[in-house]
């Protein structure tokens, strides 16, 4: 079982993939977003915008924080 934030991230990624008619890969916490999903930079930016709208949190308010995987992205919204 994934924690609720990871599940939310996965749901949003799945939505964005669907909206853009992209093929859906398996999405796990250790999935590297930009290489193991069909999301490009704009689509990933969309995921982040939607996450902020859903959670009301902006972990990047002080600047960019590097993340590669779904789990790493989810962690930023847990604090």
């Amino acid at each position: 079982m994934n924690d609720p934030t990871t599940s939310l991230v996965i749901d949003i990624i799945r939505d964005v993939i669907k909206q853009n008619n992209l093929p859906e890969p398996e999405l796990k916490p250790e999935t590297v977003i930009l290489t193991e999903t069909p999301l490009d930079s704009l689509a990933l930016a969309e995921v982040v915008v939607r996450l902020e709208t859903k959670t009301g949190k902006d972990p990047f308010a002080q600047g960019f924080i590097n993340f590669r995987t779904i789990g790493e992205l989810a962690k930023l919204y847990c604090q």
Partner: protein
Amino acid sequence: MEVYRPLVVEHGRIVVHTDDPIFLNVLLVLCRTLKKELFACHAYFKEDDVESLVSEYSADLLLTRLMSTGMERALKLKKESIPDGEGCLYVFTSGTTGEAKIARHHWHKIALSADFVGERLRGKRWLLCYSPTSYAGLQVFFSAYQNAGTIYYPLGGYEQTAYDLSKYEIQIISATPTYWRLLMASWPSDLPHPRLVQATLGGEIVTQDILDAIRGFFKPEKLTQIYASTEAGTAIVVSDDRAGFPLGYLEDQGRVPLRIVNNMLEIKAHAGMEGYLNRESSVTSDGWVRSGDAVEIRDDRVYFLGRQDGMINVGGLKVLPEEVETALTALEEIRDARVFAKKSPLVGAVVVAEVVMEPQIPFDEPGLKAKLKKRLPEYKIPRMIMPVEKIEIFEHGKKRRF
């Protein structure tokens, strides 16, 4: 390169539409050598736009090479060729009314910046991550070319580029802050970080966090921010690892003259464009270019704040909210629309929209996006569309842009 020479020799005004940077480079060098006029169309231009351009400006040769669709053609458009003159390069830039402005540049001025020529840069291997038809992309190309360098273009994803960087021992990378961010975010954990001779950024506002991140990640000998525009040429070059530029640049006789008028940066261009082909120049009679970029002075430094005209910068590509609003309201199910920027940690900003639907029409976000895709390039399509009851208007009649 020689295969195209006979074709180029015979024509005077050439339009190229390609997503193959090497093909574009060949034409740039040939047209510059042979003093031809070249229109360098962006790869995302639609076929119709290119064709109306060709007829409006009476081009005599159209060269299309699109790897994405497999389309390749060379169309001779006139019996009589246009006679040779000085030749020039036409660069496309976003206009405030949506239609692209076409800026005319002398071939010999396009890569004049002394910061990019010199022994230190001679014979190096460059990675060019700007759009090859953008002013920045063209400048980097000519700089590398004049320095007898080798140019690489990232054609795969970011992770592939990371491996290629190591494999080909790239020494200089020129990219937007967005590109740098995504490259670092995609860096494979088992791949060592290469040490660069030079890292340059431009095309978007450069913030301290991205400078620090590149400094720590690639440890470049020189980390350089470039502020340039299609109209004014390269105006500001800063290599002190700090965001913004020194206040002293405003009075430095040895540099491109700069001044701040009503919080907006103006540049006295020396290597800028000759003028626009399709509208009046934005350059004042005494040679100052109004950049449209708002700035503020804090202590000994000048910082960029954003655009005065509400232009949205999506990873270095410019989007005008009005243009996207027009495309939205042209759809019969939409009554009104407001388009604005949402700050993005990844690409600087993304385009988002609020729409008022016509009565009884259900809101269907994927459906709206699919329709917009037929009218607009990908980066101009709102990443998020939200249904609202009404659009908020300010007292002065303008839509809110934030």
